[in-house]
């Protein structure tokens, strides 16, 4: 079964990590909503795609999960950033910034000549 392209997978993982970093422990639904809101609703996220990504991150040890109850007393599985996950976030955020900076310079009107 072919997975989604690496870029998309990678970006989604990065968004999840960043969300957990900012908001602390959160359930899948919360993460999905947060990503949607932060993107200013520009990103139409199929919530279903989130769960395999969460599973992968958990298997890789970047996040851990635990059942708890939500603010309105619903049972929900909460995800939390681990120490390894925090490091991964730092690293990938830096990578991402670099990539976008390079691309931005490339695409700027002067064509990178400056």
């Amino acid at each position: 079964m072919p997975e989604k392209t690496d870029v998309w997978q990678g970006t989604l993982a990065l968004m999840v990590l960043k969300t957990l970093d900012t908001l602390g422990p959160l359930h899948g639904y919360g993460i999905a909503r947060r990503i949607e809101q932060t993107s200013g609703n520009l990103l139409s996220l199929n919530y279903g795609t989130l769960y395999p990504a969460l599973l992968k991150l958990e298997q890789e040890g970047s996040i851990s999960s635990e059942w708890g109850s939500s603010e309105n007393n619903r049972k929900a599985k909460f995800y939390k950033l681990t120490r390894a996950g925090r490091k991964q976030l730092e690293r990938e955020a830096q990578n991402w910034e670099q990539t976008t900076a390079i691309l931005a310079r490339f695409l700027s009107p002067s064509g990178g000549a400056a």
Partner: protein
Amino acid sequence: MKTLRAWFLRIGGLFSKAGRESDLSDEIESHLQLHIDDNLRAGMSPDLARRNALLKLGGIEPLKEACRDRRSVPFIQNLLRDVRFALRQLQKNPGFTATAILMLALGMCASIAIFAFVDAALLKPLPYRDPARLLGVFESTPTDRQTSDLSYPDYLDWKKLNSAFSSLDAYQHSAFGLSTSSGAEKASGARVTDGFFRTLGVTPVIGRDFHPGEDLPGAPRTALLSYATWQQRYGSKPDVLGKTVTLNGEPTVIIGVLHREFHFPPAEPAEFWTALHAASECDLRRSCHFLYSVGRLKEGVSMQAALADLQSIASRLEKLYPGSNRDQGANVMPLSEVIVGNIRPILLVLLSGAVLLLIIAAVNVASLLLVRSESRRREIAVRHALGASTARLLSQFVAEGLVLVAAGSALGVAAASVVMKLLVKLIPADALASMSYLAHIGWNMRMWIFAGLLALLASVLFSLTPAVHLSRSEIQPGLTEGSRSSTGNAWRHLGSKLIVIELATAMVLLVGAGLLGKSLYHLLRVEVGFAADRLLMLQVAAPRSSYANGAQAAAFVRRVLDRIAGLPGVQSVGLTTDIPVSHWGDTTWFRVVGRPWHGEHNDTPERDVSPGYFTTIGAKLLRGRYFLEKEDASKPRVAIV
């Protein structure tokens, strides 16, 4: 690192499932609830709220499927399912299963067991340092061009004059009279020159090697023990070093024990390895040949160069000593050739036989599988029609083949381990002692690789045969009941080929076995010129120190013969230096009286026998008479041709 951890978890996921599955359902349920709550708060109707939440999530089943695949390894999961299915299928057909597995096990067992011998004799490197540069060095004479032995003076000259070897040493297999508390006992042994073990590049496991010069007559006598002797005679005690044993009446100090893996079949069986001490009349005579030699080639010197070097030395010696060295050249061959040269063809024939047997077994099992796939044609067609992909259908056959091969190999490997040991026991103890490389036969890396390769080939064959067969023939016709004719054709096609292969291999094996049997029959009936039944052989050795001159020896021989002749049940007794139909390379030169001599050199095998010898072995006398009792050293020498 991260991916590795993930893979571990996924592989772990193959085995535990139930808990995670419900966990996932719970999580999805809770996700939906949270979303519905939100939607309700936003003012949607309960119905709409639920529909919106479901829509936003996407399909639940694909989601679960994706998580499931993520959680474990789908390929392996499918394979496991196939294997389980294959096991059930095979269980339903115990007759087929047992036959297939047994055939396979038999073929594997034979091949592996024989390969163990091939490995021990031909593949395993000799237990010496840099064995490729070791050469067996021989004299070449008109009667034995390849492997004639040297005399001590010749050896010394070769050692001194050659420029091809960094070291050249010599050995002689011999037997010692070992004096023990319960009387004299025969012990096998070898006499070697001082640098023998250094040339081979082996060091004793305890104690020391011979010092240079320790093999000279003046030096105190010393000996090294073989590991087995150290264990059996001395209980593996380290205080054996420095002990004195009496060998051939000479006190000899034990100075070391050789390694357990050490073997040197040309000089074995050997319990005691003594330094040479060439002192006897024969040792010092240039025409008394008893030594074989082994040399280590210098860096960059080829075998041909070494041979040429030795041959030039031999021809120089021939000119210097025409009385003893006429027609005596030199020959060299790789030491491995000396050690396993005569067993190589036998082993290779056996191995090919075993492999042919395995081929027959494999072809048999393959045709059984083919027949089975034929009978399952309908089932396969139905599954295909229901949407099973070709890959999944094929993997079914692969799984079945794997299960069969796994069971067959396991059984074959187990049987081979037993058969190997049994086969070694079949070799007579004497013969085994001179093939000591077979002593430590057992499993090693090369054998596992060989077994693995066999198993791999078998699995490929077994999974491909039905698969190829199925993909070749149309699957659709299988659905219809009246498809007998087309399937019959396909079967005839492949099946007939298999039968041809099988018949051909069986034929080769049969003919080979028949020829071997015929040779054996001829060998048993060969006319040797004497009556071999009711003959017993006895070897007698006496220390040279007690019977130094000819008269003493002759008296001893007479006493022995008289005592034996006096034993109840003994009809007659004779004595010979070489037993019938074999010779130790004892030769003599002769010229025919009354015929002109043109300088030709007649070298012929010879043996010294007692007067009773010919009557004892029941030889037919064509003309003339046998030796008489009274013909001793005082009478003219006589001979029988």
